[in-house]
């Protein structure tokens, strides 16, 4: 029964990874790639301090985005699960959160541009309120814009798993805690958060991997001015430098797998599903 799924993964997951690892040792000319065993791609990658800066940038984006999506996602899920009282309203409000998710990512991303631009809504509103005199340039084409877009795109991936685990918390546990005299904050900290941990971990895995693998958000929102590892790879691909793209991809894959491997130590996904 599991054979078809295995076959798909072998052909479209394992073989591509093997291919990338192989090609990362190849050489490239302007227009073709030549089989070889050459460490030059890795030497260049690790020899350039731009690489380290870009990896640092990638982690920075992932970490800041994670903090914001977790904060917002947890609060929203908590509100939906414990403060909205009827199931119908829970479903309605939950769906309301998911609707923007169905619009093309790219369109949602570029729709920030007229909002944040020098003459955009945000700036003209702030100016008309007298909060600022000059338009704020850092709203668009900056790290701020990149992280804003990430948070906008991926908070839902945090809300869904957390909401899902919260809904499965036995309400009598909370009542028991209240009867035992726990305050709201104590219940949140000592009962709800520990029980929601699996959902938080799953959401974290989603957000971290999506941000670390992204290359298009960074390009659009930074006006091509910042880079993360994904952009390094896509730039190389665009210039037909497949071997050097592959080498970067191998390093990125290892990094992501290590990060996720560490997280899986804290949660048994199979049991928590």
């Amino acid at each position, binding site marked *: *029964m*599991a054979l*078809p*799924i*295995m076959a*798909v*993964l072998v*052909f*479209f*997951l394992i073989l*591509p990874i093997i*291919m*990338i690892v192989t*090609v990362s040792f190849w050489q490239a000319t302007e227009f073709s790639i030549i089989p070889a065993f050459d460490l030059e791609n890795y030497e260049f990658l690790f020899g350039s301090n731009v690489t380290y800066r870009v990896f640092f940038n990638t982690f920075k984006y992932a970490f800041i985005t994670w903090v914001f999506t977790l904060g*917002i996602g947890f*609060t*929203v899920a*908590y*509100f939906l699960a414990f*403060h909205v009282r009827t199931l119908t309203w829970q479903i309605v*409000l939950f769906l*309301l*959160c998911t*609707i*923007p998710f*169905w*619009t*093309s*990512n*790219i*369109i*949602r991303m*570029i*729709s*920030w*541009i*007229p909002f944040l631009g020098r*003459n*955009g*809504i945000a700036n*003209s509103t702030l100016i008309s309120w007298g909060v600022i005199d000059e338009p704020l340039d850092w709203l668009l084409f900056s790290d701020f814009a990149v992280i804003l877009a990430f948070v*906008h795109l991926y908070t839902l991936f945090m809300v869904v798993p957390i909401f899902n685990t919260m809904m499965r918390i036995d309400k009598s546990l909370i009542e028991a805690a209240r009867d035992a005299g726990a305050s709201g904050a104590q219940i949140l900290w000592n009962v709800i958060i520990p029980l929601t941990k699996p959902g938080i971990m799953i959401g974290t895995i989603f957000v971290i*991997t999506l941000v670390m*693998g*992204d*290359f*298009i958000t960074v390009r*659009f929102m930074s006006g091509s001015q910042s880079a993360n590892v*994904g952009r390094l*790879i896509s730039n190389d*691909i665009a210039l037909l430098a*497949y071997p050097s793209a592959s080498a970067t*991809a191998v390093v990125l*894959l290892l990094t*992501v*797998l290590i990060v*996720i491997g560490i997280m*899986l130590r804290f949660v048994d*996904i199979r049991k928590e*599903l």
Partner: protein
Amino acid sequence: MEPRSRSFYVLSAFFALFLLFLYGPTITIAILSFQGPNGGLTFPMRGTSLHWFRDLFEQQAVGDIWGSFRRSFALGLMVMVTTVVLSVMGGLAFRKRFKGSSILFYLIITSLVIPSILISLGVGLIFSQSGLDVHWSTSGFGSQLTWTLPFGLLIMLAVFNRFDKSYEEAARDLGASSWQTLRHVVLPIIGPSLIGVALFGFTLSYDEFARTLLTSGSYNTLPLEIFGMTTNVTTPVLYALGTLTTVFSLIVIAVFLCLALWSTRRKARAGSDAGKGML
């Protein structure tokens, strides 16, 4: 009912702000898509009209929106059906321990977390090195499955984790073959979740960009076309398309919701027919 606490109102306000944050950009482009014929991609607005929606249905200076829409739709359906079938099969297989089950599970997790562009690059390289032509319905299709199958399978695992085996035992005790048990007991029970899997499969595919980037060949899918448009189009026609896709997504969700509702109703009705036998 106890009265609402103060934290309820604080949280409600927070939730409202969150919704505003989610919808803000969508609303921005919806407004901008109603610009006059001289409109650009940014504020200030230049007149108001339905010009860009009409324009969307005419031939563009470059590219082919509707062709790519048809391809994305077809591909979405292909991916949807495959995902549902393979996920159910996988889910059933995982109910027993089998050789390689934990390897498969970790592969699924890897498939979920691997950066999309790696799949694109790898599949593209395999096809080009073996002299095959990439095409959205072959290489593109396979690449998208590596993204939808983990979702489908994980949902099925969750469903079967909570599946009450006594139904099947009862069916078997009544002399049902394993196929009959599957067809008449298991599938109807997991039906609503299958709609969820189908919905995931379709929309994840319909919206997939990075995995199709290097694997779709000569003909663009809709997200690739939209990406092309962001670099080739300077008019609000792009926003009109965005507004329309949002509306289209809403319709798809509504259809699936109705299906889910209808199937639970039918099941409820069928439940009351208990005793009339299953054939």
